[in-house]
């Protein structure tokens, strides 16, 4: 299986990602990991919730992975996005690429996370220490 994408309510398991990127012909892997930050501008973030249009999010992730494998000579793609409630420091998203050469792994991974942030229907609702909360928008 060339690509593996997943929207999950559970903590992202790095060994599952590694397993899907495993390939004896690939010399390099590039991974992007998005982690919940402790602040947004000057406000302290306590936690956040990701809401998803899950069916479309899955389709969009599959389309992004398909574009990556079509556009670059890469051998494996794994994209996982967690939804639900996350705490500071927890991993929200991983985009992983395995390929023979590193140039295309970097380019494809960068494309992948940019596309996830632009085109996957997932929304982040941040809860701040001052009791307020806010729906975010990606700048991309």
């Amino acid at each position, binding site marked *: 299986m060339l690509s593996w994408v997943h929207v999950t309510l559970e903590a992202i398991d790095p060994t599952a990602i590694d397993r899907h990127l495993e390939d004896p012909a690939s010399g390099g892997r590039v991974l992007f990991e*998005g982690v919940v930050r402790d602040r947004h501008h000057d406000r302290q973030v306590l936690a956040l919730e*990701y*809401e*998803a*249009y899950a*069916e*479309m*999010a899955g*389709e*969009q992730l599959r389309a992004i992975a398909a574009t990556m494998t079509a556009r670059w000579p890469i051998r494996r793609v794994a994209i996982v*996005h967690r939804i639900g409630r996350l705490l500071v420091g927890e991993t*929200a*998203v991983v985009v992983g690429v395995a390929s023979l050469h590193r140039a295309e792994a970097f380019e494809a991974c960068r494309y992948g*996370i940019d596309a*996830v*942030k*632009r*085109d*996957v*229907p*997932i*929304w*982040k*609702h941040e809860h701040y220490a001052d009791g307020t909360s806010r*729906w*975010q*928008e*990606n700048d991309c």
Partner: protein
Amino acid sequence: MVVVRLFAQVRELAGTSAIQLELPDDARAADVASAIVERFPLVAPLMPSARIAINRAFADADTPIRVGDEVAVIPPVSGG
């Protein structure tokens, strides 16, 4: 008639996660946006930056909508 799903801030301001819309036979994606604004004036400021999805793919303003289509309003996303 189509069901339109609402998400995130649009869902909150509309107070519902799905509505049913009566649309003319020749309706297009842009008509969904107008119908939402008419029904939920509070949502109006969000609609210029929202996209319409039809059957889980982003639609253009003039993409036709057919009975049974899965329609959704997609405000600016913030995944990743």
